């Protein structure tokens, strides 16, 4: 972007997002009854700043709406309006609409008037339609209103008069200087529009002894020959209007009858013109505000101007005590640059690991300087890696604020009073994780409002608060971030879920399932059904899609529910997508990495655990349930299936709703964090493989996508029909194929 205005515009939209965030925060604390006078100010300023910037870029629609919103907020600030819940709800809606308008402006798409108009109408009613209409028009036009002196008389302001001569009598009052005005600059401005000569009137100048330095004693008479009209002359005196005695009079003109017809009224009650005495001798007292005679083209430096005094002033004492709330300095950086840094740091980590291996291989003793130096290097590398990852991290706040809107809209749509309570908004997570969490969270929040919470009346009858609560929290826990979506609703109706699952053929009717297992049926593809689809969450998206989205981020999702008290979904996510905790395994001479979050446990298979299921398929008995056995070497085509898996190392791969498979490998080598290298970009998608990484020896190891692997499994070691598992995966399979 080379156009500086385009850059500022882009940055304006970023700033808008920040302002919208502050706006929502403010509204929320007002809604929670925590707001004070400053909260209203913050909210007002946010809207005000958006309006200001929008005006600068000519975004009229945005300005118009922001102006009305601002007016309403101003009424609130001045006490004309009361903070009742209804008003705040309207303000929340305004906040949403404002956000939409900002984004529409940013994306250069037309405004959605269907959404906008009703809110505008409501705002107009609130602030008194007609009057606001006028105000809006005035402000939307945003003429840079030269606050004119209004000295011109009707008909007098003839700009086409040829070379008329103006006589201007200018007597500053004391406040003129106190406000930082400097006559010299006014004269220069006049000089710019014509031929100017200036005479100083110092008749009022008292003897030096009586000189009151706070008083302006000197006035000027200016003669200006200009083609410009009165308005242009008056404009130069814009800022000093009221601070001086000013009289602007046309001396001669090509059509001199004008003056005769409309004589100028004297200003400041002084109609007498002082004599034109030419340049007077000015007292060289630097407390006297003075200017020498100024002739066109010859402006001597005025030593005694306030500005000059200012420059001579000693530098002020330095004050370093920065206020606690001082704005934090930030730098905006292109994401590509950060990603490059992330990649390079990944390289350093790898390089360091390779170096360590070589040092070890060279037989250098652990206590040697080389080894200790290397250890320090290792520590530094880790610190650098963490710091770099933090650059990409962002607070989840923006995400939570979006959810707040979802709650408002969802609850309004079905007529439930719902309040979103958030905690841990400043918890930081990788930017990409945040972006990709929006959809699954939206769905979960909608679900909570729609299905989780009872209707208000029902709640009241049950002795609960009429207003339902949805809780959205984020917290860092042992190197991961845990996000919870909870409601204080009725909890999962397990009988209903079970019946539905049986109806849908997801489980056999005689299944014996624990409460937890029943709850987890919600994650099965095809569980979400049309008859429970309301106008809210019914978008053909089920919790299975939510779960896959979370898993694709390296996360896990689990569910807890207590009848009568509510349901909690917990999402546990890695802090960054750039590294992954993996188990390094060996199979058929190849090294692979299995994401730790997919492994339930590892064990060695004994003879008793193994059951042949078909001619070439096996199942493993894990605590009385049979789990299909998958030979990783065979699945990936590294080798033919083995005859006997006894003694083999098995990784139990599963999801929260149960085990999906037992994956056989030859050996487990290590458990470590690996830097993820995309395979998709350089090669393309490989079934069963999520990505690649580079190990300490410089070799590339593939990172397994266990769920994909199980889904794609050829079945050579897998039984064909392990009941509900099968339907589960077949569905996964077909949905996967669509993508």
């Amino acid at each position: 972007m080379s156009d500086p205005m385009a850059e500022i515009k882009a940055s304006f939209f970023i700033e808008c997002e920040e302002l919208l965030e502050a706006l929502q925060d403010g509204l929320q604390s007002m809604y929670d009854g925590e707001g004070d006078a400053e909260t209203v100010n913050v909210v007002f300023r946010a809207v005000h700043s958006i309006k200001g910037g929008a005006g600068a870029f000519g975004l009229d629609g945005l300005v118009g709406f922001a102006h009305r919103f601002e007016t309403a907020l101003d009424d609130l600030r001045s006490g004309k309006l009361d903070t009742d819940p209804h008003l705040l709800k309207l303000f929340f809606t305004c906040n949403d609409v404002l956000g939409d308008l900002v984004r529409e402006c940013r994306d250069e798409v037309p405004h959605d008037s269907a959404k906008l108009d009703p809110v505008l109408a409501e705002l107009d009613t609130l602030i008194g339609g007609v009057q606001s209409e006028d105000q809006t028009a005035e402000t939307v036009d945003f003429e840079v209103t030269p606050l004119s002196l209004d000295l011109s008389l009707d008909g007098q302001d003839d700009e086409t008069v040829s070379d008329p001569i103006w006589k201007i009598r200018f007597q500053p009052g004391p406040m003129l200087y106190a406000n930082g005005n400097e006559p010299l600059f006014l004269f220069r401005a006049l000089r710019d529009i014509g031929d100017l000569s200036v005479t100083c009137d110092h008749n009022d100048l008292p003897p030096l002894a009586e000189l009151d330095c706070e008083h302006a004693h000197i006035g000027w008479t200016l003669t200006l020959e200009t083609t410009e009209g009165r308005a242009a002359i008056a404009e130069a005196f814009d800022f000093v209007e009221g601070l001086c005695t000013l009289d602007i009079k046309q001396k001669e003109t090509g059509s001199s009858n004008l003056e005769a017809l409309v004589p100028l009224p004297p200003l400041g009650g002084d109609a007498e013109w002082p004599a034109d005495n030419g340049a007077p001798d000015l007292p060289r007292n630097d407390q006297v505000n003075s200017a020498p005679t100024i002739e066109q083209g010859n402006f001597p430096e005025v030593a005694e101007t306030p500005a000059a005094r200012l420059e001579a002033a000693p530098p002020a004492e330095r004050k370093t005590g920065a206020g606690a709330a001082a704005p934090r300095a930030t730098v905006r950086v292109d994401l590509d640059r950060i990603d490059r840094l992330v990649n390079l740091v990944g390289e350093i980590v790898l390089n360091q690991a390779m170096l360590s291996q070589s040092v070890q291989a060279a037989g250098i003793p652990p206590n040697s300087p080389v080894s200790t130096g290397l250890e320090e290097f290792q520590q530094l590398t880790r610190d650098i890696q963490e710091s770099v990852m933090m650059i990409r991290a962002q607070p989840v706040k923006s995400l939570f604020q979006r959810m707040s809107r979802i709650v408002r809209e969802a609850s309004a749509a079905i007529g439930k009073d719902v309040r979103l309570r958030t905690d841990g908004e400043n918890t930081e997570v990788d930017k990409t994780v945040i972006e990709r969490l929006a959809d699954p969270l939206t769905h979960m929040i909608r679900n909570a409002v729609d299905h989780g919470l009872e209707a208000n009346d029902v709640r009241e009858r049950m002795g609960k608060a009429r207003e339902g609560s949805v809780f959205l929290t984020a917290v860092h826990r042992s190197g991961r971030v845990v996000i919870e979506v909870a409601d204080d609703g009725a909890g999962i109706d397990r009988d209903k879920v079970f019946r539905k699952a049986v109806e849908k053929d997801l489980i056999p009717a005689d299944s014996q399932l624990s409460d937890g297992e029943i709850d987890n049926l919600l994650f099965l593809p095809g569980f979400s059904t049309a008859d429970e689809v309301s106008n809210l969450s019914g978008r053909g998206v089920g919790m299975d899609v939510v779960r896959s989205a979370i898993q694709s981020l390296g996360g896990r999702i689990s569910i807890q529910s207590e009848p009568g008290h509510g349901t909690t979904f917990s999402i546990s996510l890695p802090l960054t997508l750039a590294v992954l905790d993996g188990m390094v395994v060996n199979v058929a001479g190849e090294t692979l990495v299995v994401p730790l979050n997919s492994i339930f446990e590892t064990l060695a298979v004994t003879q008793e655990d193994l059951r042949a299921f078909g001619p070439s398929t096996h199942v493993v008995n894990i605590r009385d349930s049979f789990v299909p056995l998958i030979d990783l070497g065979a699945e990936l085509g590294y080798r033919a299936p083995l005859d006997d898996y006894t003694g083999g190392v098995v990784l139990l791969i599963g999801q929260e709703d149960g085990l999906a498979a037992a994956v056989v490998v030859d050996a487990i080598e290590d458990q470590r964090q690996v830097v993820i290298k995309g395979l998709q970009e350089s090669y393309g998608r490989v079934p069963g493989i999520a990505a690649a990484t580079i190990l300490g020896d410089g070799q590339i190891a593939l990172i397994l996508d266990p769920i994909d692997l199980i889904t794609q499994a050829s079945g050579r070691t897998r039984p064909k029909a392990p009941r509900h598992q099968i339907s589960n995966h077949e569905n996964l399979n077909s949905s996967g194929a669509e993508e």
Partner: protein
Amino acid sequence: MTDSEAIKDYSGDGSVREYLSFLVGGQDYCVDIMQVREIRGGAKATTLPHSPSFMRGVINLRGTVLPIMDLACRLDMHTETDTQRNVIIVVATGERVVGLMVDAVSDILAISHEDLQPPPDLPADQQRSFVSALTIMENRMIRVLDLTAVVPSSDEEAA
């Protein structure tokens, strides 16, 4: 931009381009030097499951994952190649960077457009579609490899 476009332009403006020539299964091939990123020794590649036979796997090229293609196999030559002793020419075509495993790198040739001729029309020969032009140098026939045809797009592979 199509990489082979310039090569296919037989109008003969006399401009001379440089080509890197190499041996695959005893035959001479070359690619536009502008498409060559680097030449490096063979390394043990990590096998990619479910990949076409000509894909040797991936290697670590200074931290990036570089797919390695066995060119002889791609050209349907069925010659035994010794992974460790081969040479890998890293080429870029469009957005993709691929390592081509060849027997040996021969020379850098300056070939003028006028000396390039379209390949003979031999529909039965698989190689034909991979060769965009031919030239004769010191009694040897050198084939200009059409990289866009040789390197499948990632979409194709994903399918």
